[in-house]
């Protein structure tokens, strides 16, 4: 009995409910929010189903009232971004990040005495062409529609960063270059390599016998051209005959013997004179060899198909010019200036409706 009594008394001594600092403050009943769902369910206590129903109802309802307390409760967090009230926080955050990166890099390069760079140093920088993402691709990055003005703003900043990257790489500061590169790579197009490789010709490789295989086109003709250097004759012309000695003029200074080779041009297995009876076509074919100064140096074998005389001779000339460039890259400049390496884009113009031919109009009739 004593034990029971002591237990009872000790229970009375302890507080019936703990008063902690985290207890919710008293809310007058008039301010409590009651929902129809609660009464309809007839639930005395909130179980899972009622809670789910309540949540669903709350989510559906549109709280348009600006005086609603929960709109601006002090318990809610501040928005994350400094640019929240612009409505395009992601875009402006990225712009600010790029500007910060530019100013940091500029400071670093100034301390390394690489900025401001004089004119001659700018010209010495390694070219670093880049291709930025398209506006559509950037839309996902910035979470806002990339209008032309916004795209230009972003690309202007990226181009400036790219200039600093050029300076850092050329001067040999790999860590600085890597940091800039990591930022730039986010905005670089995935198709950069393909884009930059456009228009770049693959260099023609000579095969085991020293032959070049090139392709030429003009109008609707296509020519496959093989070129091989002519082997100089083992016996030089005029080396065995000593004419001066025969005439007794050996004291005169002799000219050095000229190593003259003769090239053969075969087109569809026929010699050039046979395949192209017109001198115009022959001139056209030989012109690249004359301009490059290698008239007797290479033997040419061609297979040409399609088109007529002009087209076929033009195609062969194009192929020969490319072949000369493959054997002697130094001739590239002069062949380019003569426009021989260029595939002539002129094609037969189509006939139009209402016209007799491409350009020819029918006779004008007054009435």
């Amino acid at each position: 009995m004593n034990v029971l009594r002591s237990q009872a008394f000790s229970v009375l001594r302890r507080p019936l409910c703990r008063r902690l600092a985290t207890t919710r403050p008293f809310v007058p009943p008039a301010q409590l929010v009651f929902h129809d769902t609660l009464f309809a369910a007839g639930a005395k206590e909130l179980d899972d189903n009622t809670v789910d129903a309540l949540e669903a109802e709350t989510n559906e309802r549109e709280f348009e009232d600006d005086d609603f307390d929960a709109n601006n409760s002090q318990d809610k967090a501040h928005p994350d971004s400094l640019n929240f009230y612009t409505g395009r926080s992601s875009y402006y955050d990225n712009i600010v990040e790029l500007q910060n990166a530019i100013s940091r890099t500029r400071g670093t390069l100034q301390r390394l005495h690489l900025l401001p760079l004089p004119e001659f140093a700018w010209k010495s920088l390694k070219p670093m062409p880049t291709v930025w993402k398209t506006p559509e691709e950037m839309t996902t990055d910035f979470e806002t529609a990339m209008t032309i003005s916004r795209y230009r703003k972003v690309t202007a900043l990226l181009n400036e960063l790219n200039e600093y990257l050029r300076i850092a790489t050329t001067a040999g500061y790999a860590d600085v270059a890597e940091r800039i590169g990591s930022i730039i790579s986010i905005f670089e197009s995935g198709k950069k390599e393909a884009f930059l490789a456009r228009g770049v010709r693959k260099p023609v490789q000579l095969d085991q016998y020293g032959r070049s295989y090139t392709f030429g086109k003009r109008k609707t003709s296509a020519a496959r051209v093989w070129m091989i250097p002519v082997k100089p004759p083992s016996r030089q012309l005029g080396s065995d005959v000593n004419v001066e000695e025969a005439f007794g003029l050996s004291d005169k200074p002799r000219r050095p013997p000229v190593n003259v080779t003769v090239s053969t041009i075969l087109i569809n297995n026929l010699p050039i004179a046979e395949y192209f009876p017109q001198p115009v076509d022959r001139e056209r074919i030989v012109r690249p060899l004359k301009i490059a100064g290698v008239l007797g140096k290479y033997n040419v074998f061609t297979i040409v198909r399609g088109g007529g005389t002009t087209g076929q001779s033009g195609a062969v000339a194009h192929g020969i010019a490319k072949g000369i460039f493959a054997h002697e890259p130094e001739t590239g400049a002069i062949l380019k200036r003569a426009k021989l390496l260029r595939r002539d884009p002129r094609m037969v113009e189509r006939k139009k409706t209402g016209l007799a031919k491409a350009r020819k109009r029918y006779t004008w009739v007054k009435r």
Partner: protein
Amino acid sequence: MHSLRLRLSNPVRFSFKFCKNCTRQLSQQAQGPLETENDWTDFQQTRTSLKTLMDAMSQYGSTQTSQWSLRDSLHRPTKDATLSALLASGAHFGHASSRMNPNFLPYAYGTRAGITLIDLDHTLPLLRRAAKVVRAVAANDGQIVFIGTRADIRPVVQKAAQRLGTQGFHVGDRWLPGTLTNKWQMFGHETVRSKRIVPDLVILLNPIQNMNAIQECALSNVPTIAIVDSNVDPRIVMYPIPANDESPRTAEIIAGVLSIAGREGIAIREAETQRMRMAVDSAWEDFNKMQVMQDTRQPQRSDAEAFDY
């Protein structure tokens, strides 16, 4: 070539031959392009040596006591604006007198050269009042938005917002109409429920271009501070600061004063929180000590147990 050596009291010595070498190298380098990495290193070396020379020589020139830089008004603004600073920035230049708003008359000093001059004796106390408001709002964990929608004041509002940490925001481009009145559509339900959207104070540096923002703040019961010029009715905002709204230097001074006041408010709040935390901690310590003492005390025998029935 005989090199001149300066005999000086301090141990650093120079030779003019050194200068000549530098300039010769520089002029030589001006012609040649830089091909290898060594060329670049030499280029940097020349510049570094020239800079070292200039730095060393500069100690023999005049002593510069003031370290003022042109960008100081943006990056290192002052806590209080002075009359001379406002005058120097051109804060007293209003717009054309023909365009003066009649409600602006109390703040006008007079007319000169066809423009209204603003009385800076009114500007200073109103600026201080606005600063007090900013400090109080910031001290109560309020959100403050700086709006400056011109290209020259865009960096000003950005810097001002950065000074307020998590409580500072800025709008440097257009204020989208409906930011406050159409927030459910603009920001989405999730954001409006979880974050505080309506700010506690809005500061406008060019109110004429942002009448939409002023209207929305009025509808949402947000207090506003703005730089009002002579062609503006000062009653459109709660705390007008009469000054030139077209001068970027004036905007830098005013935004600087207000943002520094806000930073002070945050520091006050932080100090207060720290003090309260320490007070609570010490109170808990005392409470725990008391508990320990009670537990270690001998258990009292109740009167009921005293008698053995």
